[in-house]
């Protein structure tokens, strides 16, 4: 013999026995013992080292370490060459690193608001019976076995099994996402724990009635506690940009330090002094590290987030800007996101829907019946209540039905029951009492015994054939995208006492009056937005609690599935529940795109399966119980209008207008941001070539150093910043949403980008600037092997022209970086003000460092003849022209490959190509 009963299946007496409790409640000794065993009733996962650890993590990532290292280099350089304001640069870099770390820390700290929002669902104090008397205690002191006193308006502090119940109605929205009230009972029930009507759950609210419940789960062991636990402990995967940035910084740092150390060792071995070698090593490291790149990243993302905000996409964490552009799948809600969330009754039809169009009298009668089971209140703003009930009231108004005439004669109402998926009411008409039920067809079908036919004839018996015919009609309506509600009724016996009656006893022998077809129109802009997603290789999955036929119809209207698509694209919540993760992955692979009749908690399962398939997932949500899925997804998107505080706090992105089209706009912006980041990374790395080469030549040959550390920093942290930001501002490329999302393993720093930056453009800049450097030296009488002091006017002029040449050539590089395949010379050059500003800065700075006293003093430069300066200007067409030639060659090769049957390789948005 085996007893596998659970708490909801026990009688109230058994509940006391099994939980070691009694009507008089627990004694203080028992409470103490239970607190010791299971802990306090709190959903907060306490970790006193959490914040120090989080702060420490911000300072221990490669990004921050590199910036601090650069700052340290500046301070060392200041000690070596005082008076060149290197310490100012050092402080600036340290400030950027500090700000960056603090900014990330504050972002993580703000995410803790989810916990604060969740706490609001739990009461501070509760009433319990202990040692025979009712007392008020802190909710945190509640233990399993405590007898909880429940009253109207209470928030529930723990999961409890009801043992006494008087008209208790609860709202379980925080757990189920379903805002409709649930009638509760104290009797044993046969159902799953989560669906049991004799259980009250932590975080939920009591709408009316009173009762007593024995607490059986507290803290994170409650259903609400599990939500809260997940909201706190789930770690979001680092975004691809975070990973790629870290990867890039790591590689560049390793290269810089390795080169620095190698040449330091070479210098020592070749007999140079230690101090000189140290300076030299610093120079190599500074030349290799693009100090300005990382702050520019942050600026670019911040500007991207501002642009997104203008498109109604509010970004909470900067990394989410780029993460949006990388998603492979968008899992979206239906109501309010794809549709307008404006319910309207557009079809009123008899059970079989055949014959002549239903007459007005029939429609009025059906609407009146539906209104009986639709508790709505009239407020100054209009009707208030469930959107569906409000839609019924509006339809009644259109039919000139006087609402109070119906609602005022309702003698008993049965609130919508989530488990039963129906609501009901009893009203009196001409001395007769009529019970009405309104709900899902599947819920009403087993209760029917007769069917009306839309005229005044006697209803027909509801045999299986008739019921099948009615179901076929219902499905036909649902297939057009309507949400279909069935309305049924029965006349009650005169002697029946309503006060004692339970709903189940009334729900038998019902006559189906007809169906109401409710439409929630798809937003106008949605189909185009979904098609854009498809063009961009992004799958759109719809997750809804609606009937599969309705879901399929909306999916068709939204272009999520094609018109001719069959039902294999749909998966219901019940099927989903039965599938293992691998089976779900297989179904997704086969093309399932619609999840119907699902619960919010099933979203987690969908996210997990998609992520296991290697996809980056964006998930929308609005309810409290969406919070874990929003955190688990790579990009959590909360609804700004209809979302709860918990959902908004758990998401990275808030959709201000709840509109799917805004998500797509956000994706496009995210892709643009990544493409632009790649452009300016390419741009910045080019100047590393001419910065490194002088040091290599200097250590290997007896020649003067062409570029000093301060001059390198003036490029990296000075003149390159504005042009980089300008590239970060480049407008979206229309092609950006016509290719699939980049692969997860596709990094920012690709071998082709490195080759293009260092070995092609970088080398060009290095060769031209070094040529002019040696030309000035040669014209000034320098001979090979001759040493020149840093104050020597010849040396200052030579190093000045080397620096000026690099700055000018960066202009050609800047324009060329705008597109991977096109020249970069178009009208937008003039409209991108930052780009113009960048060009002007490079020109003015290249001139000023040669011919103005203050800059000559700071940078250790001197003037050159105008003929030499003109030669430096020639570097612009040289680098631009040769790079354009390379683009043409690549384009020619791509066209040739396409002609051969291959596809055009994807442009890298301005990268190396």
């Amino acid at each position, binding site marked *: *013999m*085996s*007893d*596998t*009963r*659970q*708490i909801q299946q*026990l009688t109230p007496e058994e509940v006391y*026995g*099994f*939980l*070691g409790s009694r009507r008089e409640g627990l004694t203080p000794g*028992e409470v103490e*013992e*239970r607190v*010791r*065993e*299971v*802990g306090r009733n709190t959903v907060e*996962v306490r970790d006193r080292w959490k914040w120090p650890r989080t702060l420490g993590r911000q300072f221990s990532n490669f990004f921050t370490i590199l910036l601090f290292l650069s700052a340290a280099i500046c301070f060392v350089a200041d000690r070596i060459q005082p008076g060149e304001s290197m310490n100012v640069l050092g402080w600036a870099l340290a400030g950027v690193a500090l700000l960056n770390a603090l900014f990330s820390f504050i972002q993580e700290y703000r995410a803790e608001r989810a916990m604060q929002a969740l706490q609001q669902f739990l009461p501070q104090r509760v009433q319990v019976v202990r040692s025979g008397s009712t007392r008020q205690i802190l909710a945190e002191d509640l233990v*399993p*076995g405590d007898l909880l006193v429940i009253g109207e308006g209470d928030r529930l502090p723990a*999961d409890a*099994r009801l043992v006494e119940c008087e008209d208790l109605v609860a709202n379980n929205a925080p757990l189920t996402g379903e805002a409709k009230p649930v009638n509760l009972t104290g009797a044993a029930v046969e159902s799953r724990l989560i669906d049991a009507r004799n259980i009250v759950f932590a975080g939920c609210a009591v709408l009316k009635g009173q009762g007593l419940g024995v607490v*059986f*789960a507290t803290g*994170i*062991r409650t*259903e609400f*506690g*599990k939500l809260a*636990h*997940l909201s706190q*402990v*789930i770690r979001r995967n*680092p975004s691809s940009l*975070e*990973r790629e940035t*870290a*990867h890039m910084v*790591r590689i560049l740092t390793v290269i810089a330090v390795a080169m620095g150390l190698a040449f330091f060792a070479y210098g020592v071995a070749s007999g140079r002094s230690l101090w000189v070698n140290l300076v030299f090593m610093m120079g190599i490291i500074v030349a290799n590290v693009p100090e300005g790149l990382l702050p520019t990243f942050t600026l670019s993302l911040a500007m991207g987030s501002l642009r997104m905000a203008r498109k109604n996409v509010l970004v909470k964490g900067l990394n989410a800007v780029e993460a949006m552009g990388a998603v492979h799948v968008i899992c979206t809600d239906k109501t309010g996101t794809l549709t307008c969330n404006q319910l309207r009754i557009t079809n009123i039809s008899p059970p079989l829907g055949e014959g002549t169009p239903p007459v007005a009298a029939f429609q009025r009668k059906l609407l009146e019946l539906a209104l009986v089971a639709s508790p709505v209140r009239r407020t100054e703003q209009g009707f208030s209540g469930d959107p569906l009930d409000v839609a019924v009231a509006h339809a009644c108004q259109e039919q000139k039905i006087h609402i109070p005439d119906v609602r005022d004669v309702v003698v008993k109402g049965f609130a919508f029951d989530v488990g039963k998926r129906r609501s009901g009411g009893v009203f009196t008409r001409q001395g007769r009492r009529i019970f009405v039920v309104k709900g899902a067809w599947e819920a009403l079908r087993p209760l029917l015994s007769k069917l009306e036919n839309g005229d005044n004839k006697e209803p027909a018996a509801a045999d299986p054939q008739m019921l099948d015919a009615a179901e076929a009609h219902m499905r036909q309506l649902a297939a057009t995208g309507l949400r279909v509600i069935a309305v049924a009724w029965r006349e009650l016996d005169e002697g029946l006492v309503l006060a004692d009656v339970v709903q189940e006893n009334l729900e038998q022998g019902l006559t189906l009056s007809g169906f109401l077809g409710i439409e929630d129109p798809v937003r106008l802009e949605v189909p185009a937005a979904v098609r854009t997603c498809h063009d961009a290789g992004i799958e759109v999955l719809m997750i809804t609690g609606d009937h599969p036929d309705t879901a399929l119809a909306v999916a068709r209207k939204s272009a999520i599935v094609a018109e001719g698509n069959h039902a294999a694209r749909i998966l219901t919540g019940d099927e989903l529940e*039965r599938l*293992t*993760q*691998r089976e779900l992955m297989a179904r997704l692979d086969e093309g399932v795109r619609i999840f119907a009749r699902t619960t919010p*908690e099933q979203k*987690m399962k969908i996210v*997990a399966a998609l992520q*296991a398939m*290697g996809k980056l997932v964006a998930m929308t949500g609005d309810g409290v119980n969406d919070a*874990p899925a929003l955190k*688990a997804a790579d990009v959590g998107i909360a609804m700004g209008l209809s979302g709860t505080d918990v959902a908004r706090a758990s998401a990275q992105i808030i959709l201000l207008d709840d509109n799917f089209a805004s998500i797509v706009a956000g994706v496009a912006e995210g892709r643009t941001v990544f493409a632009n980041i790649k452009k300016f990374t390419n741009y910045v790395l080019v100047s590393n070539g001419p910065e490194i080469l002088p040091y290599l030549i200097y250590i290997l040959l007896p020649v003067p150093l062409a570029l000093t550390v301060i001059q390198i920093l003036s490029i990296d942290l000075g003149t390159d910043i504005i042009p980089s930001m300008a590239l970060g501002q480049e407008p979206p490329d229309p092609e950006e949403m016509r290719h699939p999302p980049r*692969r*997860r*393993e596709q990094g920012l720093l690709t071998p082709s980008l490195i080759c293009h930056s260092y070995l092609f453009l970088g080398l060009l800049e290095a060769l031209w600037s070094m040529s002019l450097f040696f030309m000035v030296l040669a014209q000034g009488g320098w001979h090979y092997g001759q040493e020149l002091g840093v104050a020597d006017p010849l040396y200052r002029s030579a190093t000045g022209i080397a620096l000026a040449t690099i700055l000018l050539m960066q202009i050609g590089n800047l324009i060329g970086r705008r597109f991977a395949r096109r020249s970069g010379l178009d009208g937008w050059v003039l409209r991108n003000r930052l780009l113009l500003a960048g060009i002007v800065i490079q020109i003015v700075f290249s001139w000023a460092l040669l011919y103005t006293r203050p800059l000559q003093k700071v940078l250790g430069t001197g003037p050159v003849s105008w003929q030499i300066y003109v030669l430096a200007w020639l570097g612009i067409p040289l680098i631009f022209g040769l790079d354009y030639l390379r683009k043409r060659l690549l384009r020619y090769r791509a066209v040739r490959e396409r002609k051969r049957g291959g596809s055009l390789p994807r442009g890298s948005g301005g990268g190396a190509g």
Partner: protein
Amino acid sequence: MIILAYDGSLNGDWVSRYAIRFAAHIGTSLSVLHVSDGSLDPDQLYIKLQRLERESRTLGVESFTEILPLEKSVYFTLLAHIPSGREHIVVCGTRVRTRKQHFLSGTIAEKLLRTGYFPVLALRVVQPGLLGTPRDLLLPMAGHPRGFEAAWPFFRLLLPEVDRLFLLRCMKVSSLRLPHMSEARRTAIRLAGERYLGVVGEEITRRRGNSLFRLDWRVSICDDWVHEVLVQASRLKVRMLLLGATERPLGHRLLHGNALERVLRGTPCDVGIYRSL
């Protein structure tokens, strides 16, 4: 036979409900051993034992209660009275130690788990409302070559009521390496975990008989398996975690802390820690 080491505490009462059901599920008798160390009022103990016998009778389980006089210590008294061998399974509870620091370290349950003379299942019950009938189980697998063999004697105790069984293989990598791992490496690690769980899954399918529970598994690449197990327990809404106990050298425990203690402290559901022979 199921041997319940019963201490008369509240947790002991909750654990006893599991023990009775285990005996009922496999159709065996229940032996209740209580060491009289004077910490419990005899009248209270009598009432509790009466209830235990009553509940056993309700489920058709034959139970025998022995109140043992304290010898050298509670542990040695139990050891002297529990027969060695794999025929009997010892069920005991993990009790919170002073100042709420430990649930296992230094307890009788830990000593019994370390004994190695008989199979032991130590239970921490945090959801007494389940009444010893957890229907959804999470079984983290450490990748041991024995696979499911070690867990089977304990899993079969729960078998009749299990609806869903989740296997979890946490593939541990260093926290420095985790954020920077390439996609190819991740895939390779995940596949290795999948292969292991595939073999375990086949073994379970072979052993499950007519039981219709749903079997699912997850592979997770993580740097902290305890954290991952607790997250998955909440995520999958399981009612019980079933963990195998292994001996770790002192150095490892000093360096990494006691992982089982962390699970017991932060668990969102009941936990069973088993050690088979």
